[in-house]
């Protein structure tokens, strides 16, 4: 493996949920420790399952892994760190300020930003505090800081002004205000991250177009702030031998190879390792020891039973959606779970029943919009470009609100407009214009605002409350977008996930966020299910079996209603193939 050659002191693994970065980070740590190095393995993932993968209890403290000498593990609990931060801020004023005020403060500090920065605060200590890390030759992190976090810490004007004044009146630093203790520590951490002698960043992806595009985006973001020393791991590649066994495996193999061939150029330039899909579950030390081995063990062709998954199909959900005759359907979920495809599948299935549908997508590739446009009766398609919307929003604010400012004032405003919140707000505003149509037809959206944005809308509530107050005064009837989203008669939120541990946990977190914003998700959709595809190839059967526990969790613990969508042989593009996604789960012909 190239990424292991002359490994530096700090190794970071980054990639979206479900690509297998935890397994790879654990396998790396084990390999280094068994080569005689002293290794600290750190997870900063809110949904960390390092302990589960290693088969031990870890938690928020330094824990030796008994079976591997020289390996120590630590799970930084970002939620707990954020809670501690909130308590630090709010605790002293509880009972001193009115309860309503205290509650408002807590809500304001419940955003994703607080969690992210609290976690960053914890691990900058590990990057810079010699006392903790001196004992180790390598520190392996299973989650890298995002470009957004590092950029926040680097905002030059805001940061220095803020700290020199020792006050909270700087720029959009938000939750950093309570973490002002160590400017030198943040500086040193950012420097350590940018130093290729000390730090190596490993992007983990799957051989899928969307995953590789996302890896390319992360690459660009991190390179732009000086983290240029990067490696790429393509994980979970289906071995060629499998392709001979059944048509689904053959199709997956061909699709993965095509995705690799079409990989963005920036990724092609990076040193790359391919890790084949393994015929065993990646839990426990024995499995992890083999993950990065150069030789693949021989596949057993027998022994894995076919799975018999019985679950509702997307078509069953659409039956219930169709009853109202109109309304808003929003698909929410993390990047890469297939929101766009499923939005199109729901839209096509509704239109097939003769119902009027407007599908609106923010898919950057936009090939769905191209494929579908005008090709089906009752269906119209429109596209929202998040980057264009964000730029338009920024220019609009600068032109209107910033019109009378002097150069200095404009610079301040421009800097605040670089806040990551602006994209979500801009996209939400674009969607708000379309939402109104849902009174007379179906409006299906693939990129909905996240729970965090909705919370922002609700908690700060500027728009919603302003409108309510003005119209209440006039005695008028009105509906704000927020009220529409909270009304389950008008809006159905579909949470999209994959049947894997991390994506299910992430979807559950999103559900909790939505509930806090007063929105109850209507259903969960498990996408790309291997189990629902009922494969014959042994490796795929094994994966199908691993999925069953996750499907069970969704069905019993998380969702009010759910559906399972099978992994298809062909890329689900075009009306006919999209209709297949909604079809009931059956044995393939």
């Amino acid at each position, binding site marked *: 493996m190239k990424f292991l050659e002359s490994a530096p002191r700090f190794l970071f693994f980054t990639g979206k949920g479900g690509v297998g970065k935890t397994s790879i980070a654990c396998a790396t740590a084990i390999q280094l420790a068994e080569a005689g190095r002293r290794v600290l393995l750190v997870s900063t993932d809110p949904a960390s399952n390092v302990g589960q993968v290693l088969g031990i209890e870890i938690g928020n403290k330094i824990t030796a892994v008994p079976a591997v000498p020289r390996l120590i593990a630590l799970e930084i609990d970002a939620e707990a760190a954020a809670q501690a931060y909130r308590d630090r801020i709010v605790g002293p004023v509880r009972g001193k300020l009115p309860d309503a005020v205290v509650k408002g403060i807590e809500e304001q500090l419940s955003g994703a930003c607080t969690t992210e920065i609290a976690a960053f605060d914890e691990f900058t200590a590990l990057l810079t505090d010699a006392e903790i890390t001196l004992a180790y030759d390598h520190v392996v992190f299973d989650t890298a800081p995002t470009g957004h976090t590092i950029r926040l810490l680097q905002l030059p004007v805001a940061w220095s002004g803020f700290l020199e004044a020792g006050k909270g009146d700087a720029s959009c630093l938000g939750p950093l205000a309570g973490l002002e203790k160590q400017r030198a520590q943040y500086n040193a951490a950012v420097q350590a991250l940018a130093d290729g002698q000390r730090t190596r960043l490993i992007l983990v992806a799957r051989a899928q177009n969307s995953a590789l595009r996302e890896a390319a985006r992360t690459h660009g973001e991190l390179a732009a702030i000086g983290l240029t020393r990067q490696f790429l791991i393509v994980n979970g590649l289906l071995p060629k031998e499998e392709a001979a066994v059944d048509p689904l495996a053959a199709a997956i193999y061909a699709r993965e190879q095509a995705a690799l061939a079409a990989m963005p150029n920036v990724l092609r330039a990076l040193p790359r390792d391919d890790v084949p899909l393994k015929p065993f579950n990646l839990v426990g030390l024995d499995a992890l020891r083999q993950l990065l081995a150069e030789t693949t063990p021989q596949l057993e062709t027998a022994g894995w039973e076919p799975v018999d998954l019985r679950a509702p199909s997307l078509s069953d959900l659409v039956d219930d959606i169709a009853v109202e005759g109109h309304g808003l359907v929003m698909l929410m979920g993390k990047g890469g779970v297939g929101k766009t495809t499923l939005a199109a599948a729901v839209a096509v299935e509704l239109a097939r029943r003769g119902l009027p549908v407007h599908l609106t997508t923010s898919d950057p590739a936009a090939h769905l919009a191209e494929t579908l446009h005008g090709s089906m009766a009752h269906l119209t398609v429109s596209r929202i470009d998040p980057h264009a919307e964000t730029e338009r929003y920024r220019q609009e604010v600068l032109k209107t*609100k910033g019109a009378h400012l002097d150069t200095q004032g404009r610079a*301040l405003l421009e800097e605040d407009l670089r806040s990551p919140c602006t994209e979500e707000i801009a996209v939400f505003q674009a969607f708000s214009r379309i939402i109104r149509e849902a009174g007379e037809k179906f409006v299906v959206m693939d990129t909905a605002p996240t729970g965090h944005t909705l919370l922002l809308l609700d908690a700060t509530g500027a728009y919603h409350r302003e409108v309510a107050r003005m119209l209440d005064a006039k005695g008028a009837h009105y509906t704000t977008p927020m009220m529409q989203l909270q009304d389950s008669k008008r809006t159905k939120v579909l949470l999209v996930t994959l049947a894997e541990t991390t994506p299910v946990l992430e979807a559950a977190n999103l559900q909790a966020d939505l509930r806090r914003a007063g929105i109850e998700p209507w259903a969960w959709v498990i996408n790309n299910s291997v189990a629902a595809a009922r494969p014959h190839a042994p490796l795929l059967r094994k994966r199908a079996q691993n999925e069953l526990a996750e499907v069970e969790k969704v069905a019993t613990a998380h969702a009010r209603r759910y559906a399972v969508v099978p992994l298809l042989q062909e890329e689900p593009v075009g009306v006919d193939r999209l209709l297949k996604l909604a079809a009931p789960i059956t044995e393939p012909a």
Partner: protein
Amino acid sequence: MMTIKVFDPALCCSTGVCGVDTDQALVTFAADVDWAKKNGAQIERFNLAQQPMAFADNATVKGFLERSGQEALPLILVDGDIALAGRYPDRTELARWAGVKEPVEAAQGSCCGGSPCC
């Protein structure tokens, strides 16, 4: 020199652009504070979401919050006394309180705060 203390509502940032609808008053005020400080004014801002202790520790501010609630913010104290509540001061008011001389070309309502339009 008078000390000006501004007690903001719970904001994510001083210009408020992180919120759903950017408030012109916040944008303008952030720029005015920046300007006044550069001209020697002593101004401190306290964000309710980030420094609630500053609110609780000040008897005037605490009493104000108990009587009028957080909806009545912002509150501006000049040398400890309530000078303004419920809205942000403009540049002229800031300049007067701080004893800063306001240059004519940067005055409020001028079209060209350093821009090439005039």
